[in-house]
C-alpha cells in the first residue's frame, strides 16, 4: 500500500500523453501503427472473429519485447500498459515481459514494474524469475533504484517471497537514505496485508522507523503504525514530542495521518481539558483569540496560570500538540485542515475550539465533494458547539446553483444554528428557499422550519402560520410536506389549533400525496373531539373512496373510524362498520388484519374479553409529541472527519476514539534522554531545565520564541521548510548525511558565513542534481545516475565535514537562544547584537513599485539586505513571547499570577469576585491594562445581568467594561476581561458591579508592576537608554538577597512576578536587566540588578516616571526578600 503523494500517479504515467489519454488516444494509436491490428480487443470474447489474429497481434508485441532495440521494447510496453489501464487482459504476455525486468533502459524498466505489480499475483511462479533482479536492485548504490526495487518487491503479492520481503524491509529501514527508509515504511502495510503473521517482526521495524528524525519518514511510518499496530500506543510515547515538532514540515498527506493518530493518542494520555467546565477559561481565551497578534505561548502561560487556581492542569505535551497543529489550519490541503479541526474539536479546551470555524468555512469554497464532507462535519459540530459557527451564519446561506445534496446539508447547519436572536433572519432566508424550483430542497426546508418551530418556542406560531399558508401552495409535494410537519407541530398543543385542523380536513378533497392524506386523517382522528362536526364527515368521504386509497391511507381511515366510533358512536357507527367491512376484503393482509383486530377491540361482543373495556384508553391515550431533532445529533462519538462519521456507521478498520482517562497516565513516559551535543555553553542550566516537568529541549527550541529569534537573521538563507530550525536543532547530531537536513540547517548571522554557505550549496546542488531528476524525468539514464552517485560519494565526506561544523555551531546558537529565553544566558547577547548592525541596510534599497509593469531599476540587491524592513515589528513580536513565556516557564514553584479579591462572598451576598492581571495586551486598546475578573456565584439562585456600571474613574482614567453576563447559574464561575487605563498611576479604578438585584461598589488598585508591558531591547539599546535616564530618573537601592533567592532562576522569577517586565540580554554574569514600557504613556522603565559579593546586590531602576520608579523599587525589593 502506498501512501499517496501527489506526484505518485504522475510518475507512473508514460511520457507520451497518448498512452494515457484513454479513448481518444486509442484512435490515435491505431492510426499511428496501422500495421498492428487492434490489440485492445484481443480478449474481448465478443470479438471472436479476430481472436486468432489477436494471438498474432500479441506475437507482435512479444517480438518487440524480444528485440534488441530499447525503443521497440518501450513502444511495446507502452501499449501493454495502456491495455492494462483500459482493463484488458494482458496476462499471457507475462513471460515475454518478465524477461525485460533486467533491462538497462530505465523507462522500459519502470513500465515492466507496472506490469509486474499488476500480474505477479496471478502468475506467481513466473514472477519469481524477477525476484533476483529486485534483490540486486536493493543493493544498488543509487537510492532511487533501491527504493523502487523495494517498492515493486513489496507490491507483488506472492506469499512465497514473504521472507525475502521481510529481510528487504529490515535492511531498508536502516538505509542511509531517508527516501529508502520512507519506502520501507510504505512496504510494511503491504507485507502485513499479505501475511499478518509477520506482525511482531514488523512492529520492531516500525518501532525503529518511528525513532527516525526525518520529516520524509514520519508520515509514512505513522501510516504503517496505523495499519499494523494502532493499539500499540506505547510505541508513540518516546516519539510524541518529536512528531509534534516535525509535523509542520511533514508532507501534507503524512500530516493528516499523524494528526489523526495523535488525536487518539492524546485521548488516552491526557485529561479532558473541559472536565471542570470553567467559564473562566472560556471568556479569557476568547478575549485572547480576539487579539490580532496571538501567540500560542500565551495560551501556555494561561494554562499554567490557571493551574494555580484549579485542580486541572493541561499537560504541557497536550498543549504542545494543540500549539503545533494550529498553523496547519492554514494549509491548502482540505484534508489537513479537517484533520486539525477534528483534533481541536476532540482535544482542545472548549474556549479554543472556535479557531477552527473560520478554516472550515473557508473549505466551503472548495470543490463540491469537499463541501459535502465538510458540511457533514460542521453539522455535527454545530449541534455541540453552536456558538462556534454562529458568526459565519451567512456563509451557509444557500445559492440556487448549489447541488441539492449541498443545499440540504447547509439547511441542516442553518437549522442547528438557529436560536432566538437569529431565527427571524433564518426564517426570512427559508422563505426564499420555499420558492425554489428544486422541490426536494423545498421539502427539506419545510422540515427545517418544523424543527425551528419545535426548538424555539417563540416562533412556533409564526412557523405554524407560515406552514398553513403553504397548504394552499400549488405544488402538491410542498403541501404534503407541510401537512406532515404541521401534524407534528400540532401534536404539541392541539387545543389551540382546531381552526388549522379544520382547514386541513378540507384538504382531503384535493391533496393526493398518500403520506399527507394519512397525516391529515390521523390528525382528525386524534383530535376528533376538537372538530366534532367535521370528523364524521371526513370519514364519510373517505369511506366512499376507501377502495382507491393507498395502504397507508387505508390504515388511517380505519384508525379514524375506530376513534370516532369510540367518541361519537351515534354518528359514526354505521360508517365504521362499512369501512371495516371493506377492509375485511382488502387485498392487503395488513389491512385485513388491522380491520379484524380493531373490530374485536371496539365492537363489544360476547367473545371480546377484557380488552374491550380499555379500547378508549388504548386509542385515545396521550401520545408524546414527536421530537424533531437533527440526524447529526451525537454523531460525534465517531472521530470527526472519519469515514465512519460520514456514514454514521462503523467502517472496517475504524479505531474508536477512546474516552478521556480519569487519571492521567504517567507523563514522564514521553521524556527523552538529552542528547550529548547539548553540552555547550550553558550546561548547568540545561540540566536544570530537563529536570523540570517541562518540554524536552527539542521542544523548547522549536517553539515560536526560538524561531522568532532566528528568523530575522536567516531570512534569505533559511531553506524551504519554515521551521527548519527545529529539525536542524533536534536532528542535526546524527542526520548530517541526509539531504533533508543538510539544507535545513542553513542559518547564518553574518555575511562571511553566508558566502561560505552559498558555496557549499552550489556544491550540494551539484551532488543532488541526479537524484530528484530521475524521480520523474523520463529521459534519465541509469548510467548517468550511477555516475552522479559516485560523484556525490566522493564529495560527500568533504561536504559532510563542512556541514558538521556548521551544524554544531547552529546547535549551540539555537540552543543558547532557547535557554536564554527561559533562564537567560550570555550568548543571547551575542545574538541580539546582530540585528541593529544590519538594520540600516534595507531602507535605502528601493526595489520596484509593483503597481506598474516597468522593469525594475537596475539596482543590485546587497546581500546584507536580508533583514526585513519590519524588523522592529518582528522584535516586538518577540517581546510578546518573552513575557508570556516568563510566567509559564517559571510558574510551577511560585504563583504565576497573583489573584486579588474584588468582592468578598460575604459582602457580595454569595457573589464572590476575584481579579488578576493577565499581562496580555488588552485587545482593542493598547493603552489599557487587561484585568481578568473571575466571578463565582455561591448563592443558590441564578444571578442575572452581571455588568459594570457607573465607572467613576479619576480624571483621564478610562474603563472598558466587560460584556454583560446574562446569567450565571448557581455554583458557576464566569471569567471576563476588562480593560482599564490607569494613566500610569496606582490610583484605584472605582466602579459598580451590578446584578439584576444589587449594586456593589468595588475598586481595583493595580500594583505598580502591572502598569507596564515588557519591551525587547538589545544590550546596547538598553545602555543607551539608561544613559539618558540618569539623575532624578535613577533610583538605586541596596538589597540583601536571601538564601533561596540567589540563583539566576529565582531572581528572574521574582522580578518578573513583581513586575510585568521583559528580560534584556546581558553580557555580564552578575547582572540582570529588564525593560518595560508603561502602558499608558509608553515611558521606559529599566531595571538593573547587580549582584555583589555574597548576598549583597544593588537594584537600579531608571524611569522618567519617578513615582513609578520609586514604587517599583520598593516592590521588587520586597519580592526579592521573600
Amino acid at each position: 500500500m502506498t501512501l499517496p503523494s501527489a506526484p505518485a500517479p504522475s510518475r507512473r504515467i508514460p511520457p507520451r500523453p497518448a498512452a494515457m489519454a484513454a479513448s481518444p488516444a486509442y484512435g490515435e494509436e491505431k492510426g499511428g501503427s496501422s500495421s498492428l491490428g487492434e490489440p485492445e480487443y484481443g480478449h474481448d470474447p465478443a470479438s471472436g472473429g479476430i481472436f486468432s489474429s489477436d494471438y498474432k497481434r500479441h506475437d507482435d508485441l512479444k517480438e518487440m519485447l524480444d528485440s534488441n532495440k530499447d525503443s521497440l521494447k518501450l513502444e511495446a510496453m507502452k501499449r501493454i500498459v495502456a491495455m492494462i489501464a483500459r482493463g484488458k487482459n494482458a496476462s499471457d504476455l507475462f513471460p515475454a515481459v518478465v524477461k525485460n525486468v533486467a533491462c538497462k533502459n530505465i523507462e522500459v524498466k519502470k513500465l515492466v514494474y507496472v506490469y509486474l505489480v499488476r500480474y505477479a499475483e496471478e502468475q506467481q511462479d513466473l514472477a519469481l524469475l524477477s525476484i533476483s533482479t529486485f534483490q540486486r536492485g536493493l543493493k544498488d548504490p543509487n537510492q532511487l533504484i533501491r527504493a523502487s526495487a523495494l517498492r515493486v518487491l513489496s507490491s507483488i503479492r506472492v506469499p512465497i517471497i514473504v521472507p525475502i520481503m521481510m529481510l528487504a524491509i529490515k535492511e531498508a529501514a536502516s538505509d542511509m537514505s531517508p527516501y529508502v527508509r520512507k519506502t520501507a515504511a510504505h512496504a510494511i502495510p503491504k507485507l502485513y496485508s499479505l501475511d499478518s503473521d509477520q506482525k511482531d517482526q514488523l512492529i520492531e521495524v516500525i518501532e525503529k522507523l518511528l525513532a527516525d528524525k526525518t520529516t520524509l519518514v514520519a508520515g509514512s511510518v505513522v501510516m504503517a503504525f496505523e495499519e499494523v499496530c494502532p493499539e500499540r500506543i506505547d510505541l508513540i510515547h518516546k516519539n510524541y514530542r518529536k512528531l509534534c515538532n516535525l509535523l509542520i514540515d511533514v508532507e501534507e498527506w503524512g500530516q493528516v495521518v499523524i494528526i489523526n493518530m495523535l488525536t487518539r493518542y492524546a485521548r488516552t494520555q491526557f485529561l479532558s481539558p473541559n472536565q471542570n467546565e470553567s467559564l473562566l477559561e472560556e471568556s479569557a481565551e476568547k478575549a485572547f483569540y480576539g487579539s490580532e497578534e496571538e501567540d500560542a505561548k500565551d495560551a501556555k502561560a494561561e494554562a499554567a496560570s490557571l493551574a494555580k487556581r484549579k485542580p486541572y492542569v493541561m499537560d504541557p505535551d497536550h498543549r504542545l500538540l494543540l500549539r503545533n497543529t494550529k498553523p496547519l489550519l492554514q494549509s491548502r490541503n482540505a484534508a489537513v485542515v479537517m484533520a486539525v479541526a477534528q483534533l481541536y474539536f476532540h482535544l482542545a479546551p472548549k474556549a479554543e475550539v472556535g479557531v477552527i470555524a473560520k478554516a472550515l468555512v473557508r473549505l466551503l469554497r472548495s470543490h463540491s465533494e469537499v463541501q459535502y464532507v465538510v458540511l457533514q462535519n460542521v453539522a455535527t459540530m454545530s449541534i455541540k458547539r453552536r456558538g462556534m459557527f454562529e458568526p459565519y451564519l451567512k456563509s451557509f446561506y444557500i445559492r440556487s446553483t448549489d447541488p441539492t445534496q449541498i443545499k440540504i446539508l447547509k439547511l441542516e447547519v442553518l437549522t442547528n444554528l438557529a436560536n432566538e436572536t437569529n431565527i427571524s433572519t433564518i426564517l426570512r432566508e427559508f422563505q426564499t428557499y420555499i420558492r425554489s424550483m428544486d422541490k426536494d430542497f423545498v421539502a427539506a426546508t419545510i422540515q427545517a422550519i418544523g424543527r425551528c418551530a419545535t426548538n424555539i418556542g417563540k416562533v412556533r406560531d409564526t412557523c405554524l402560520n407560515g406552514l398553513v399558508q403553504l397548504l394552499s401552495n400549488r405544488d402538491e409535494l410542498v403541501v404534503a410536506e407541510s401537512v406532515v410537519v404541521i401534524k407534528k407541530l400540532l401534536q404539541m398543543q392541539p387545543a389551540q389549533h382546531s381552526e388549522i385542523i379544520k382547514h386541513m380536513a378540507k384538504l382531503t378533497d384535493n391533496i393526493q400525496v398518500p403520506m399527507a392524506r394519512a397525516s391529515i386523517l390521523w390528525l382528525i382522528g386524534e383530535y376528533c373531539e376538537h372538530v366534532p362536526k367535521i370528523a364524521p364527515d371526513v370519514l364519510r368521504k373517505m369511506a366512499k373512496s376507501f377502495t382507491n386509497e393507498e395502504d397507508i391511507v387505508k390504515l388511517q381511515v380505519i384508525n379514524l373510524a375506530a376513534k370516532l366510533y369510540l367518541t361519537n358512536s351515534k354518528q359514526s357507527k354505521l360508517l365504521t362498520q362499512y369501512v371495516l367491512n371493506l377492509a375485511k376484503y382488502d387485498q392487503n393482509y395488513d389491512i385485513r388484519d388491522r380491520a379484524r383486530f380493531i373490530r374485536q377491540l371496539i365492537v363489544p361482543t360476547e367473545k371480546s374479553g377484557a380488552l374491550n373495556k380499555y379500547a378508549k384508553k388504548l386509542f385515545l391515550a396521550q401520545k408524546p409529541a414527536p421530537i424533531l431533532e437533527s440526524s447529526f445529533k451525537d454523531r460525534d462519538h465517531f472521530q470527526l472527519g472519519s469515514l465512519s462519521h460520514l456514514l454514521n456507521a462503523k467502517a472496517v478498520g475504524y479505531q474508536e476514539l477512546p474516552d478521556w482517562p480519569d487519571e492521567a497516565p504517567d507523563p514522564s513516559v514521553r521524556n527523552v534522554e538529552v542528547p550529548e551535543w547539548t553540552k555547550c555553553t550553558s550546561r548547568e542550566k540545561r540540566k536544570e531545565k530537563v529536570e523540570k516537568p517541562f518540554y524536552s529541549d527539542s521542544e523548547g527550541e522549536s517553539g515560536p520564541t526560538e524561531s522568532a529569534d532566528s528568523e530575522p537573521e536567516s531570512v534569505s538563507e533559511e531553506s524551504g521548510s519554515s521551521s527548519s530550525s527545529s529539525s536542524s536543532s533536534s536532528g542535526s547530531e546524527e542526520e548530517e548525511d541526509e539531504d533533508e537536513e543538510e539544507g535545513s540547517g542553513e542559518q547564518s548571522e553574518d555575511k562571511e558565513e553566508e558566502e561560505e554557505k552559498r558555496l557549499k550549496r552550489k556544491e550540494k546542488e551539484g551532488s543532488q542534481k541526479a537524484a530528484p531528476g530521475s524521480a520523474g524525468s523520463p529521459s534519465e539514464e541509469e548510467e548517468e545516475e550511477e555516475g552522479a552517485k559516485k560523484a556525490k560519494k566522493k564529495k560527500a565526506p568533504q561536504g559532510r565535514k563542512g556541514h558538521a561544523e556548521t551544524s554544531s555551531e547552529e546547535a549551540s546558537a539555537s540552543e543558547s537562544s532557547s535557554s536564554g529565553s527561559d533562564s537567560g544566558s550570555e550568548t543571547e547577547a551575542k545574538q541580539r547584537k546582530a540585528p541593529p548592525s544590519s538594520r540600516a541596510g534595507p531602507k535605502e534599497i528601493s526595489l520596484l513599485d509593483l503597481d506598474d509593469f516597468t522593469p525594475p531599476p537596475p539596482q543590485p540587491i546587497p546581500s546584507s539586505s536580508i533583514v526585513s524592513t519590519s524588523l522592529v515589528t518582528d522584535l516586538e513580536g518577540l517581546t510578546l513571547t518573552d513575557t508570556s513565556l516568563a510566567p509559564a516557564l517559571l510558574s510551577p514553584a511560585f504563583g504565576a499570577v497573583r489573584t486579588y479579591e474584588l468582592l468578598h462572598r460575604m459582602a457580595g451576598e454569595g457573589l464572590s469576585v476575584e481579579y488578576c492581571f493577565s499581562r496580555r495586551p488588552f485587545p482593542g486598546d493598547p493603552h489599557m491594562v487587561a484585568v481578568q475578573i473571575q466571578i463565582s456565584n455561591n448563592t443558590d439562585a441564578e444571578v442575572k445581568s452581571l455588568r459594570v456600571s457607573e465607572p467613576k474613574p479619576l480624571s483621564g482614567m478610562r474603563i472598558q467594561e466587560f460584556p454583560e453576563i446574562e446569567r450565571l447559574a448557581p455554583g458557576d464561575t464566569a471569567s471576563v476581561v476588562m480593560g482599564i487605563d490607569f494613566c500610569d498611576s496606582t490610583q484605584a479604578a472605582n466602579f459598580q458591579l451590578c446584578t439584576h438585584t444589587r449594586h456593589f461598589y468595588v475598586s481595583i488598585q493595580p500594583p505598580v508592576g502591572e502598569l507596564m508591558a515588557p519591551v525587547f531591547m538589545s544590550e546596547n539599546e538598553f545602555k543607551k537608554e539608561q544613559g539618558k535616564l540618569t539623575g532624578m530618573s535613577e533610583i538605586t537601592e541596596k538589597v540583601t538577597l536571601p538564601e533561596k533567592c540567589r540563583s539566576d532562576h529565582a531572581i528572574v522569577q521574582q522580578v518578573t512576578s513583581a513586575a510585568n517586565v521583559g528580560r534584556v540580554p546581558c553580557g555580564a554574569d552578575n547582572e540582570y536587566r529588564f525593560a518595560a514600557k508603561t502602558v499608558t504613556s509608553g515611558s521606559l522603565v529599566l531595571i538593573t540588578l547587580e549582584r555583589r559579593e555574597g548576598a549583597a546586590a544593588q537594584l537600579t531602576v531608571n524611569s522618567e516616571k519617578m513615582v513609578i520608579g520609586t514604587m517599583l523599587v520598593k516592590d521588587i525589593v520586597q519580592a526579592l526578600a521573600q
Partner: protein
Amino acid sequence: MIHSLFLINASGDIFLEKHWKSVVSRSVCDYFFEAQERASEAENVPPVIPTPHHYLLSVYRHKIFFVAVIQSEVPPLFVIEFLHRVVDTFQDYFGSTNVGDQLPTGQLSVVPWRRTGVKYTNNEAYFDVIEEIDAIIDKSGSTITAEIQGVIDACVKLTGMPDLTLSFMNPRLLDDVSFHPCVRFKRWESERILSFIPPDGNFRLLSYHVSAQNLVAIPVYVKHNISFRDSSSLGRFEITVGPKQTMGKTVEGVMVTSQMPKGVLNMTLTPSQGTHIFDPVTKLLSWDVGKINPQKLPSLKGSMTLQAGTSKPDENPTINLQFKIQQLAISGLKVNRLDMYGEKYKPFKGIKYMTKAGKFQVRT
C-alpha cells in the same frame, strides 16, 4: 487507503482503471451507477457510497467521474483531496504545452516543491491578485451576504533557488489565509510577510478571504422586472445592468444567466447590446452583455410565453451574474514590494489585479 481507481466518462464507460493492491473487479462500479441513476444529476451523486465490501469515493470533474475504491476507514477528505490533485496533475500534464515542466520532480530535493538546477535566460516573476465577489442580493437590491475570496496566482520563472518575500500595504485586510506549502508560516504570523522559495512555473501562492465584517463594495446592480401574469399566457421580462461601485474602472465580460421556471415556453427578448440565447429545453437564459457603458446601460426586454392553462409559476428566477474588472482588487489589497534574495540576477517582476464575480446571485 485507495485500492483501485476507475475513471468513468459521461456516457458511463469505465475507460481507465488502476489497481494498487489486488485487482478489484470493475463490477464494483455498478453500485456507483445505481447511485448515479438515483441522483439524476451528476453533481448530486453522493461523494461517498458504501457498498457491501467497499466504499466508493468519487469526485466529478471535466465530466469525468474519478471513483476510488476503499476497503477500510480513511478520512474521506484525504481521498477526495487526493483525487482532485490527481485531476490537477492530469490537467497540467495533458492540458499545457510545456509537458514535463509541470511534473513534480523534487522528491529528494531539500525544497520538495522545487526542482533543482532551474535555468532561465529571462528571469521573471508575475503575480496575479484575483478577487472574486460572492454575493447574494435580494429582491429589493440590498445585499444579503457578500464576501471577497481572493487568490494570488504566480508564474515564477527564476533561475536557481531564489528566495522571495512579498509584502502588502494592508495585510490586515486578509482575514483568513491558506498557503502553498512553500510559504513560511511563522514569518507570516509575526510580520505579515510572505516569505517563500517559489515552485518553478505556475502555482497558487495564497488564497485568502476578506472578512464579511468589512463592507464589500458591490460593483454592479441589476434592475429587474419579471412578472408572470395569471390571466394571460404572456409574462413580462426586463432587466438592466448598471455599474455601482467600480472605482472608476470599466466593468467588462458581463454575462447574465438565469434558470427560468418550467412553465416558460419561450422568450421573445431584445437586448440593447450583446447577444442572448434562451434554451427552451433546459429553460436557461443567457445573455452575453460584454462591457457596461455607464452612459447607455445595457438592458434586455421582452415577453415570455407561458404554458397555457397552467397557473403562473410561484417562483421567480434567480439571476446569476459574471463580470470582470481589470486593474482592481475590490478589497483594496495592494502589494507593497517583492524582494528576491539568494540569487544575484535581477528578475523582471510584475503584478496584476483583477476582480471577478464569484457566486454572484440576484434573487428576484
